[in-house]
């Protein structure tokens, strides 16, 4: 205790320097920050939307595209249903938003309608026993399959809700940004993110549908005919990359993006070019393994948002459940794609409607009043602890200042978002940090009153209080880590701030005061402690 080890002093000095260095940009004007040499940190605290405003994007969920896709699926489902029932048909397609098909054999129309009713469409949400499609027999051996109006509305509403969640997950992947994401009107979504958050970057992350599929390349198709629109049934023409301007691929997806469990940006060890590494879940791995085993020597296409990004050759069955997407990536676009794949695809494309800047949610007066009152709170803690514990209170106050510097420094470095409630939480964190010092000092007092010498009282006081301090803070850290891991949006931001506070508080309240008291003790060799 009294012989404070050298590494501990070095640690305290380094931590203090770190805190100062990373907090400093917040008090420097922009012009000075810009002229700082490159190795110095320049990042400032990322204030929340309530304090500083930010950028605003308004998107519309393309419900038309959603319907088109659903009708395409309905066509494919109908095709499968009729084939399984071994009924011949012609003219299967979409007419006026409905699926239409002509049954060749007039005696089988009833059977066809029955087969379709049984296997096409799903349950209608909110209606017991209701189906979301109607199958009706039309003149001239035709059958019509259509979504009911209620189902269309429900699907659109669900697509908007899902889009909001996907967007939130994607922005959460960028860090604790605390965006404000809301539905607006029937099918629009407004997104506001604080600060100078690059609107371009935000758009890259939000606007892309990120629907990933792996489909076999249809090598049997004649490229010239395909370009003229004559495609083999069940195949489709998709735009490609620099190597091949278009591909004919099988409609059926071998594996889809939902079957990925993880995706990370990385580099191909042979070419050194940016790639996205991914892992399939159990179902995906099995399907992909089977498909590649059956198609050795052929090519499969990796399709992102209906565009082929690469079409590698299957040299051998790929059964490991993991793989790599190479394409025309930069490091940034590979990382972005990884984020998008982790967060999941949007259920429907989004089109941007409006891009604006927004001012702070709170008025300047309210912010000023709040900031002053919270500063008073911080000063009150320091005054109180010095009044209560004298010189030892000064040590605790110095530790508290290092604590504030560390918290602000780490938050600036990690670009965590600081909101108004966050600042109030921070003040309470400081009060709890002081609690650690109170615990230590009260223990030291107990030990001194029990007749121990100052050295022994300090020694025992610190080591005994440490048990309580660690138990209490480990409990807090557990809850912060869980909240960060499982929570989303603002809960994550709150948890992150809490976790930073717990770690820096234990360090400053225990180690920093220990070093300060050690120095003081060596310098003055006191006969009694000022808090006895």
């Amino acid at each position, binding site marked *: 205790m009294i012989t404070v080890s050298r590494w501990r002093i070095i640690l305290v000095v380094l931590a203090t320097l770190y805190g100062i260095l990373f907090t400093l940009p917040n008090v420097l004007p922009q012009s000075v920050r810009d002229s700082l040499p490159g190795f110095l940190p320049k990042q400032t605290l990322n204030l929340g939307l309530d304090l500083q*405003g930010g950028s*605003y994007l308004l998107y519309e969920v393309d419900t038309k595209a959603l319907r088109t896709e659903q009708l395409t699926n309905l066509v494919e489902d109908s095709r499968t249903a009729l084939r399984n029932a071994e009924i011949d048909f012609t003219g299967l397609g979409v007419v006026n938003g409905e699926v239409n098909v002509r049954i060749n054999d007039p005696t089988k129309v009833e059977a066809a309608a029955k087969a379709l009713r049984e296997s096409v469409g799903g349950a209608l949400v909110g209606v017991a026993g209701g189906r979301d499609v109607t199958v009706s027999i039309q003149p001239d051996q035709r059958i019509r399959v259509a979504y009911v109006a209620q189902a269309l509305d429900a699907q659109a509403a669900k697509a908007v809700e899902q889009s*909001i*969640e996907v967007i*939130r997950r994607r922005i959460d992947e960028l860090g604790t940004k605390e965006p*404000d994401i*809301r*539905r*607006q009107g*029937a099918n629009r979504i407004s997104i506001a993110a604080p600060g100078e958050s690059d609107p371009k970057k935000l758009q890259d992350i939000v606007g892309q549908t990120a629907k990933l599929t792996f489909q076999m390349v249809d090598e049997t198709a004649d490229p010239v005919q395909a370009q003229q629109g004559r495609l083999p049934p069940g195949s489709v023409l998709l735009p490609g990359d620099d190597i091949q301007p278009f591909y004919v691929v099988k409609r059926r997806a071998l594996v889809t993006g939902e079957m990925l469990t993880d995706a990370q940006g990385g580099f191909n060890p042979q070419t050194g070019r940016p790639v996205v590494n991914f892992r399939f879940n159990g179902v995906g791995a099995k399907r992909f393994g089977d498909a590649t085993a059956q198609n050795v020597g052929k090519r499969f296409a990796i399709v992102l948002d209906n565009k082929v990004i690469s079409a590698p050759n299957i040299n051998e069955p790929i059964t490991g459940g993991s793989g790599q997407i190479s394409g025309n990536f930069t490091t940034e676009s590979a990382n972005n794609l990884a984020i998008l794949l982790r967060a999941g695809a949007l259920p429907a494309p989004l089109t941007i409607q409006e891009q*604006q800047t*927004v*001012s702070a*949610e709170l008025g300047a*007066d*309210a912010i000023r*009043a*709040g900031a002053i*009152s919270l500063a008073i*709170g*911080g000063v009150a*803690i320091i005054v*109180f602890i*010095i*009044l*209560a514990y004298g010189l030892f209170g000064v040590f605790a106050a110095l530790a508290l200042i290092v604590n504030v510097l560390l918290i602000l420094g780490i938050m600036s470095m990690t670009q965590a978002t600081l909101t*108004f*409630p966050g600042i*109030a*939480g921070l*003040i*309470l964190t400081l*009060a*709890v940090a*002081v*609690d650690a010092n*109170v*615990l230590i000092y009260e223990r030291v*007092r107990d030990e001194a*009153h029990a007749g121990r010498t100052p050295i022994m009282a300090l020694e025992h006081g610190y080591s005994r209080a440490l*048990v309580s301090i660690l*138990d*209490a803070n*480990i*409990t*807090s850290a*557990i*809850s912060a880590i*869980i909240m960060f891991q*499982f*929570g*989303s949006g*603002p*809960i994550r931001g*709150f948890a992150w701030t809490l976790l930073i506070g717990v770690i820096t508080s*234990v360090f400053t309240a225990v*180690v920093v005061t220990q070093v300060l008291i050690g120095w003081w003790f060596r310098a003055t060799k006191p006969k009694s402690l*000022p*808090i*006895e």
Partner: protein
Amino acid sequence: MKWPFIRLLPREFHIDFVRLAPFAAIVSALLVLGSVGSFVAQGLNFGIDFVGGTAIEVRTKGPVPLGELRAAVPAAGGHDAQVQGFGRPDTAIVRFRTEGNAFQSAERVKQNLAAKFPGMEFKPPVVVGPKVSGELMSSGFMALGIALVLMLAYIWFRFQLQFGLGAVVAVFHDIVLTLGLLSITQIEFSMTSIAALLTVIGYSMNEKVITFDRLRENLRKYKTTPLREVINKSENERLSRTLITGSTAILALAGAMFLGGPVLFPLVSTMVFGIVIGTYSSVYVALPIILLWGVKRNDEPAEPLKPAGVRP
């Protein structure tokens, strides 16, 4: 003057904390009943963050007087008003929650604002959804549930099972009373209230662990003293720390409570309430549970356990 003032604090207290436990139990039961009653009867006053509302884009001749507009929207009938400058200096977006017929209420707010700000132009009102989505809430509750279970497990590992259960029951008690306060006062329940609630839980858990720590130590020191007396002794020994820490925390927030304005008041007063309740429930919810349940005392190692972590 005896400065530092800590010398003024008596060295020893002899308060019979446990004697008051039955009365405290009645008080706690009544408070919990009252909270639950209010919760059932009128629920929480969910704000625009949770239920959504209406947004109108407005344009004025000159720059928008944001401050005046913020003050005017509630007077015009829009609850939980949020006003933000929007793109250009003469444009702002006004969001508010409406009661009853959303369309009519929005029209009324519009007319009242038009009367107050002559020349203000309005775009058609649009419905905005809540900021807090269903998934945000469900993932939040899941996170809270897992966190409570793991905290229980940690306390069980470091202390005994009854300590962990006592802590979790006491924290639940604090959550119920805090929600009860929010329900009785009908303070707008917003995203900020969630932050306050999480802070209350954190502070309360911290109190519980500190309480248990002293109890565990004294249980090892006084192996034959009845549990009731060990609890009393521990609480008296700990009282100076409880008083100092509690007053530091409340003092730190008092400034924000009285000077912080209408934005901070609901948040900070909830936190202060939580600090008081969290301190109370450590002594009068968590410890009585342990007292009623009893503790294992003989298979404890005689030497105090070393702290679980490495000393920093």
